[in-house]
């Protein structure tokens, strides 16, 4: 069995993915709190994590729970919220589409948003996504597919800045 690595390596290896997931699920405003709470909690529990466990799936599970807590605290209402507050936070390089995608993801219903984040950004198989969301793997797969379809509509078809290139 592979011995457990220093936690520093876990942060370096998975920190970017967890931040992407938090940005998608929580939006830019709360993403950093989500990241911090996820890794603090993970560090506390790390010695008890079974050797050979899937660390990324474990971290995404913690991030999922922490996100629910954060949204619940923020809104004082059952989670997750339907629509994330639209926020232009200056994330990313202007024009790289970062803010646009974050806004678009924020417009998705919570389950679709989570399914897209956990499956496409964190690479979790739909059977694991289903465990997090509750429901069947098929339902999780549908949520992911619907989410992607909705994103495409918002970003591509619905965007005024989208100009199809003309062939000369």
């Amino acid at each position, binding site marked *: 069995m592979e011995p457990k690595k*220093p*936690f520093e390596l876990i*942060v370096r290896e998975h920190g970017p993915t967890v931040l992407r997931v938090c940005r998608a699920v929580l939006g830019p405003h709360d993403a950093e709190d989500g990241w911090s709470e996820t890794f603090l909690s993970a560090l506390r529990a790390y010695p008890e994590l079974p050797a050979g466990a899937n660390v990324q799936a474990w971290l995404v599970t913690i991030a999922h729970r922490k996100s629910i807590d954060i949204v619940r605290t923020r809104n004082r209402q059952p989670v997750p919220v339907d629509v994330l507050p639209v926020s232009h936070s200056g994330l990313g390089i202007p024009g790289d589409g970062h803010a646009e995608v974050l806004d678009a993801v924020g417009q998705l219903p919570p389950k679709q948003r989570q399914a897209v984040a956990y499956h*496409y950004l964190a690479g979790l198989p739909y059977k694991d996504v289903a465990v997090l969301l509750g429901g069947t793997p098929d339902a999780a797969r549908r949520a992911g597919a619907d989410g992607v379809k909705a994103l495409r509509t918002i970003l591509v078809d619905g965007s005024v800045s989208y100009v199809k290139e003309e062939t000369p």
Partner: protein
Amino acid sequence: MTIDHNEPDVSELLAPFDSVEPAVLQRLHDRLAAAAAEQHTLDIAYRTVDSPIGKLLLAATERGMVRVAFEVEDHDAVLQLLAEKLSPRILFSAGRLDPAARELDEYFAGMRHNFDLPLDFSLSRGFRLSVLEHLPHIAYGHTESYAQVALAAGSPRAVRAVGTACATNPLPVIVPCHRVVKSDGSFGNYLGGTEAKRTLLALEAA
């Protein structure tokens, strides 16, 4: 079931998520290390410092300095061993090591003759620990032979064991195993290399 990732158009759609600014991750990492230290879940903090005998890894528990490692030991391998022997709750964090880094700087500048740092001897036991506890009593600029150290540690015949204790000293430089030399006055081996031992003894002789 790998079909799921066979969707290049989705990757393209979500591509803007890929960019995660290194500065943001750095800030989050530092914030994590500070919060963990506050919550007592940062079992081992580490950093590196440059020195005349190469880059040194410094690691400390909440109790004190637990490890100093030479570059030749391979710092990644040393951290992995700490994870297995003590705790995997290890983060890069300069703060806890600031006093050690400062005292080492002063030492290498010739301004400091004694280290005043809390030490954690968790990695050493038995006779080796007795040897390590004796070493700080060898004054700056002086040396003792392996036989003298064996005598001082209470086992006059355990000369070879003194050699092993020095060779496995988890806190070199700070616990001065470089001050133990062969009876004929030659340097003897040193985990950081004979050249490093020569440098340290020359520094202290100046």
